């Protein structure tokens, strides 16, 4: 297991390096000038030259790359051209909100997708199954930005059930920042009012972001359960006279968990990318909003930083999924 972990961590470095290399060169072949973007449309040529020189943008691309890599190994992602701050502190500011949103979306996927899948499997080809399958189809095929606008219009503007964009009711004072996740920080501060407001603000964006995942989880659970339910040991368990609940949850679900786990691992990765659109529409101050404004502002160091962090997160999640395999299925061992 240890050898496996070490080997995978070694691969991980290569993957992240590859992602970073690609991001760097793509951003440098784009025929656009970050200096011009940072200084605005009225800037004079002399100002732009001075800026390019100050940030080393006038150096040849390979030299800029070497400099970047040297700094990277020292743990320095450089400074953002737009916010003028170290990218690490920008990421530290923006990442927790995305993490919170992703967790929320994941919670939706599990809490909703799992029972949906089980019900569909138990009532195969009957009305309930059809409803779940239709919902899964719609949820999986709806673009997230469209769903976001629709959900905002319906549940916020028309029905008024849930609050609109943002993380918190603006009239409330933010809790002291500990984790950067509003709900968690409010809980730590013991502020019930802020906690409820933060949680309510989380519901819509998390549901929208999690819609696709919910659909996928429901479908995976359904097909995995169907397969398992037709196995001999399930029939045996039923024949032994075990309660239906025990058969379903103890015997079937546990064995159906493996494919579901695979899906959830890759979903976490896609949630990070889906967050770009969801965060923009819901004014969510996370890494997705940060990536959007960095890309629009041609803030290449920031874009690089986001890419590297996303690549790292994706790789780590995949690794975690592989490790969890062994936990769920004792037949799997890693050498």
């Amino acid at each position, binding site marked *: 297991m240890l050898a496996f972990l070490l080997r995978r961590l070694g691969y991980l470095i290569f993957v992240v390096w590859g992602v970073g290399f690609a991001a760097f060169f793509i951003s440098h072949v*784009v*025929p*656009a*000038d970050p200096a*011009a*973007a*940072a*200084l*605005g*449309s*009225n*800037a*004079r*040529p002399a*100002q*732009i030259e*001075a800026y390019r020189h100050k940030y080393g943008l006038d150096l040849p691309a390979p030299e800029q790359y070497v400099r970047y890599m040297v700094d990277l190994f020292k743990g320095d992602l450089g400074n953002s051209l*737009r*916010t*003028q*701050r170290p990218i690490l502190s920008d990421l530290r*500011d*923006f990442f927790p*909100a995305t993490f919170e949103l992703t967790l929320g979306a994941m919670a939706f996927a599990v809490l909703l997708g799992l029972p949906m899948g089980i019900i569909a499997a138990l009532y195969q080809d009957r009305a309930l199954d059809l409803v779940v399958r239709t919902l899964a189809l719609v949820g999986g095929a709806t673009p997230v930005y469209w769903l976001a*606008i629709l959900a*905002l*219009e319906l549940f*916020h*503007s028309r029905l*008024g*059930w849930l*609050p*609109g*964009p*943002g*993380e918190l*009711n*603006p*009239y*409330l004072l*933010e809790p002291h920042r500990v984790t950067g996740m509003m709900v968690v920080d409010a809980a730590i501060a013991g502020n019930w*009012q802020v906690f*409820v*407001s933060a*949680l*309510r603000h989380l*519901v819509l964006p998390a549901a929208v972001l999690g819609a696709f995942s919910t659909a996928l989880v429901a479908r995976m659970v359904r097909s995995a359960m169907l397969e398992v339910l037709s196995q001999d040991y399930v029939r045996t368990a039923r024949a032994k006279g075990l309660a239906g609940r025990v058969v379903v949850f103890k015997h079937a679900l546990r064995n159906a968990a493996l494919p579901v786990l695979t899906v959830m691992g890759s979903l976490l990765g896609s949630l990070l990318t889906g967050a770009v659109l969801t965060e*923009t*529409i*819901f*004014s969510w*101050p*996370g890494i997705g*909003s*940060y990536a*959007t*404004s960095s890309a*629009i*502002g*041609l803030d290449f160091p920031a874009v690089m930083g986001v890419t590297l962090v996303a690549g790292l997160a994706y790789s780590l999640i995949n690794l975690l999924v592989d490790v969890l395999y062994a936990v769920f299925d004792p037949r799997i061992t890693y050498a």
Partner: protein
Amino acid sequence: MARLRLTWMLLATLAVGLFSFGAAQPAQQQTLVIGGDWTDLITLDPGVAYEFSSTPIDDNIYQRLVEFQGTDLSHVVPGLASSWDIASTADGGTTITFHLKDATFSTGRPVTAQDVVWSFDRVIHINGPSAFLFTDVAGMKVGSTVALDDKTVQLTLPKGVNPQIILNMLTFNIGGIMDATEVKQHVQGDDYGQHWLNDHSAGSGPYMLDRWDRGSQVVLVANPKYPDPPSIKRIILRYMQESNAQRAAITSGEIDVAYNFTPDAFKQAESNPDLKTLKTDTFQMAYLGMNSGPGAPFADNRVRDAVRYAIDQDGIINDLLAGLGRKMQTIIPYGLMGADTTQYYTHDIEKAKQLMAAAGKSGGMTVEFLIATGACSGGVPCADLAAKIQSDLAKIGITTNIKQTTSAQLYTIYRQQAAQLVLAAWSPDYPDPNGNASPLADYNAKSLAWRNVWNDAQGTKLATEAAVSTDPAQRKDLYAQLTKYVAQNGPYAILYQPYVPIVTTAKVQGFARSAQGDVDYAAISKLP
């Protein structure tokens, strides 16, 4: 089973709480929440900030020596200076001597002439994006500003710099005065306190910076040392990029003011009794830039004239902007001294065709048409605006191949004089006609005239003369000549001067936005 029942009860309680717990709203009447796209914010340091979103914030934190009052941008009024004298120097330059009134920074220290000197010299030392206003436009150096005593400060300007223009310029946030003693305590290396000023403030205005959560909000609180306490104690600028999000939030009362309604949404808001709509002014102009260099597609002024006759300005303003714009045909817009609102052209396709024929282009021509992604001036999508122009120009035989890039990329190409036809917007750096005349008419200013390769001796001469003239009547006359000349000979087809649509809830009183984007937060109040 009991455990299961308990779980269900807890879940049910939580659900009820989530859907029914309307947050109590303390001090709501003293808090103003403004939703807008503030993603252009880089810094709140008044000596460095040069973004659209930073100016209105800084202006409420840092007082300037001279200011504009409300939305009137034609007269400077006393700010930190109660009065000022302008005198000539022996070598043809001028001095402006400012007499400071008694004022206190939010730190409790009095505002002195030394603070003014330090604040101005600091801008020149840092040499940020806005510093050219001091160094190039005003010809200032370190040492140009001198404290004569604690309450008197003198600014010396070189020959050829018009003190009237400089007074207008000093109203901008670059002229903001900060507590030198305080900022000096927070200097890191040679940053002149820039880093510290991103999360703190040291001004004498009605508000001070409380916190800036990047990507989320900027929060200002009332300055307790300000003599005239404002009604709104807390201003929150919430980042909301999406027009839809702003619409949703203002309808539910989560925000009080929305900055980025689309023209369509604005039209709907006009009939909503819970909302107020404001068409606020801006000096911005949307225009077509035509490359007029030798051998370029628009080198012949008759072709440029043909374009100006071919463009259907009314159609653009009524249909695309839903009326949120005014017709402009030359380079000094409504609101500035010397504004020229003459209609030099009518929408006349026949006339345009004749001009094309006279220029030897009756067989038509093909040009590349550079436009930006996203929304153009006035909130209309650039692609829609470009499509309308494309169809207008097709009627006179000009085929345009639209090339859409990010705005940053567009300006990179444009600056290299490499655009053939470009759809862009311009607003002056300071509210003086010279803020338009010089960049748009003087090739040597290396700005728009240069980018469109329009090197015209008459344009340069008129712009330069008007810039240095200190006689208001003469200046006005020179600008009248210049605007007419550029309208008929320049490299532009001006499209419109947009309004900036702002929507507030009906409770908000006294909200006004000047053409420069300034909002006096202290003048705002909220009904219960």
